[in-house]
């Protein structure tokens, strides 16, 4: 079972790679008109945070290049659609890898850093597919998402891989499932949240007339306001889950280590992430703080999450030393 899981991970990485190429093709071929055309009517009805509720600011296409553009637009749409379905396939393989790993270990597959990254990335993908289902107009963000997935999964496979082993005694508690699942879930959402956040920052700069490198990418991104609302929605959804996860961790720590909070490096960085994300939510609720400043705080928050996952596991020793990395 363990070997099956390993192979499924490899296939999932390949599938993400294919999806990434598909998205890149869409990105390269597509024009702004294609974005609005590719957006089916569904999201216009848009319950929730309707992104395409406002018109996509499409500069009028000069009549001359119409046919050429529409053909490449069609091709771009096809590539994008294929990419989205390949992402679904990748997510299925990814889930298969998780399930087989769990069966092989006879427990939830969250016992070490390899399994943790595997799960966080899957949550990110699953949440992305849910967002995509609701708002197909955002499909182009798939390029960023699949890129992140390929990088994280490849890193996990190359640097973090460990054999399947049972949990150590400190992890044998029902709090393991409560604490780790919510941490994984909220981390996955934060991971997904950084995608529209970064896209917003690029697009926002583009809309403000910047034409230097990262902002030029913004030409083919959805409108900034919608990206910003999605960023907020994802973080507002994730933050209470993260808060719960940290509280659950404190309750577990009381039983396992004798203190609810002891400033272990992992706890310290969870605290930092919590404070930064709380800062983001406050900044966003404050009219005098510009939205791009607030969004930068969200990006910073994600950097602290990454720091907690990678930095703390690699550089510091603490009580949360279950990563299985030396």
């Amino acid at each position, binding site marked *: 079972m363990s070997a099956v899981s390993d192979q499924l991970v490899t296939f999932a990485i390949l599938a993400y790679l294919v999806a990434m190429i598909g998205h890149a093709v869409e990105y390269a071929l597509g024009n702004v008109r294609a974005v609005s055309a590719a957006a089916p009517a569904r999201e216009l009805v848009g*319950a929730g945070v309707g992104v395409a*509720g406002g018109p996509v600011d499409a500069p009028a296409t000069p009549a001359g290049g119409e046919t050429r553009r529409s053909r490449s637009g069609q091709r771009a749409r096809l590539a994008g659609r294929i990419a989205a379905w390949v992402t679904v396939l990748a997510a299925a393989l990814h889930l298969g890898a998780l399930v087989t790993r769990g069966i092989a270990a006879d427990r939830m597959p969250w016992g070490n850093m390899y399994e943790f990254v595997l799960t966080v990335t899957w949550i990110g993908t699953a949440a992305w597919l849910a967002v995509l289902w609701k708002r197909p107009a955002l499909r182009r963000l798939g390029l960023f998402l699949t890129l992140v997935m390929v990088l994280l999964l490849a890193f996990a496979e190359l640097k973090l891989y460990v054999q399947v*082993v049972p949990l150590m005694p400190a992890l044998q508690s029902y709090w393991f499932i409560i604490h780790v699942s919510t941490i994984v879930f909220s981390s996955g959402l934060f991971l997904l949240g950084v995608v529209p956040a970064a896209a917003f920052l690029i697009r926002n700069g583009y809309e403000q007339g910047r034409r230097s490198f990262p902002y030029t990418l913004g030409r083919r991104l959805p409108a900034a306001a919608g990206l910003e609302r999605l960023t907020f929605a994802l973080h507002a959804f994730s933050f209470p889950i993260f808060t*719960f996860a940290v509280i659950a961790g404190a309750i577990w720590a009381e039983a396992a280590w004798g*203190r609810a909070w002891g*400033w272990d490096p992992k706890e*310290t960085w969870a605290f930092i992430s919590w404070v930064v994300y709380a*800062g983001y939510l*406050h900044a966003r609720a404050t009219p005098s703080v510009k939205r791009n400043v607030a969004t930068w705080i969200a990006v910073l928050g994600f950097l602290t999450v990454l720091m907690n996952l990678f930095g703390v596991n690699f550089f510091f020793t603490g009580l949360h030393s279950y990563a299985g990395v030396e």
Partner: protein
Amino acid sequence: MTTVADRPATPPAQAPRRRPNRLLALLRNSWRQLTSMRTALVLLFLLAVAAIPGSVLPQRGVNPEKVDEYFRAHPELAPQLDRIGAFEVFGSVWFSAIYLLLFTSLVGCILPRMRDHLRALRSRPPAAPKRLERLPQHTVLPAHAPTDPAAIAAVLRRRRWRVEVRGNEVSAEKGYLKETGNLLFHTSLVAVLIGVALGSWYGWHGNRLLVAGEENAFCNTRQQYSEASLGPQVDSADLPGFCLSLDGFDARFLPSGQPESYRASVTVDEPDGSRRTADFSVNSPLRLGSANVYLLGHGYAPVLKYTDRYGRSQTSTVPFLTSGDANLTSEGVAAFPDANVDPKTGQRAADQQVAFDGIYLPTAPENPPFTSSTYPTERNPAVVLRAFRGNLGLDAGIPGSVYELDQRQVDNGKLKQVGEKKLGLGEKWTLDDGSSLEFLGTKPYITLSVRYAPGQTLMLGACVVLLAGLMGSLFARRRRVWFRVTPGDPDGGSPTGGSSLVEAGGLPRTEHPGFADEFAQLVAAVGDDGRSDGRAREGVE
């Protein structure tokens, strides 16, 4: 657009001062500045930044040995860092200053908001604006809609709106939960801080090592702990007087050496004299009424029997400490300061004290080097010891570790190494002066932490409220709707006396992308109600 309910009358104005008090003005401005959101954001950010050194540098509260190590590694830098509290970041003046300012800012912000919110909760939804069509949402209801404001109000009430009918206008507001949640969230943060403060004032904890066997039992007094910390409001005499002895310890490991489970069995003597046995393990601490006992670690204490040159023997059970090795290679020292006392004179020769230091291997490898264990359980136990003879330096009055020899005595030649040997279980080592050391076996030991943390129930309750409040503040949305019935012209010639016009307007008071849908549904519900009401009435008649 709307008028807020009247504020309580301001106290009668005092005679105008000729000159505004500068100090007061400064204080007032500082207070405003402190309670502004911008300041709060800056403080939040500072708090996050200030926490970083707490994870980068070793902390005394987390791992005091690491701090000592850091001092040894950076003898120049460490004292400087120590002076600014870098090894106790979370208790340092600057960290405390940041969070206390933040909490002051928070309290200063939520108190006025609480007052406003209480007022809002008591006040009635405001009157409708003159021109509903200027609101973000506006519609005219179909002709079959009820024209009785009371009927409209009933529909709104059923959907849990707060409703106020003024003549032919219906005002309704919903989503007070947002502000309620917001205030609960911030208040519970303060409660968490109070819980932390209670815990540090009235709490205490002690750590120690407990070797198996009734003769090694300990009672809960401060002196019995190798490391203890009592809150400022706790006196040594306040510690509850229970006693613990370790009856057995069961550690299981996988073939790979990874631990599988730990379980300690203890006998507890409660302060009231009752005696009971209990088991506890890593994730299920021993909860006594007055404190909790947590299992932190475990190891082996070799039992060593030393027979001195006069033939008198002493047996010592000395816990050897593990140094993070998964296979439990552990280090320790067995000192026999009372060895070689001449039985004729009863005199103790200060330079004839004996000590052994070295390592214990639960599973020694078959072949040398015997430097590390190959498995965490005792498959082939062995000690590798160095023997020292001389003055142990215990009389100098300088406190030393019981887990290592006083290196100064070795350095100045008062303590000399006289041999080194590996001893298997039951083996005997005869030293050059005819004395001997026998390795009799081991006893398991556990390291435990005994803690009393009184603020935790408050913190847990506060956390539950905090989460509920957070959800409310993030997901609830304040919004208002108004319905206005404009009576039809009775002279319009219609047999029913002219149809009345019902229009509705809606205003989301916070960002609420789904408001249009909600508004449409609400208006439809009001319209349908008119229809079904009509039918119901027909049915009755």
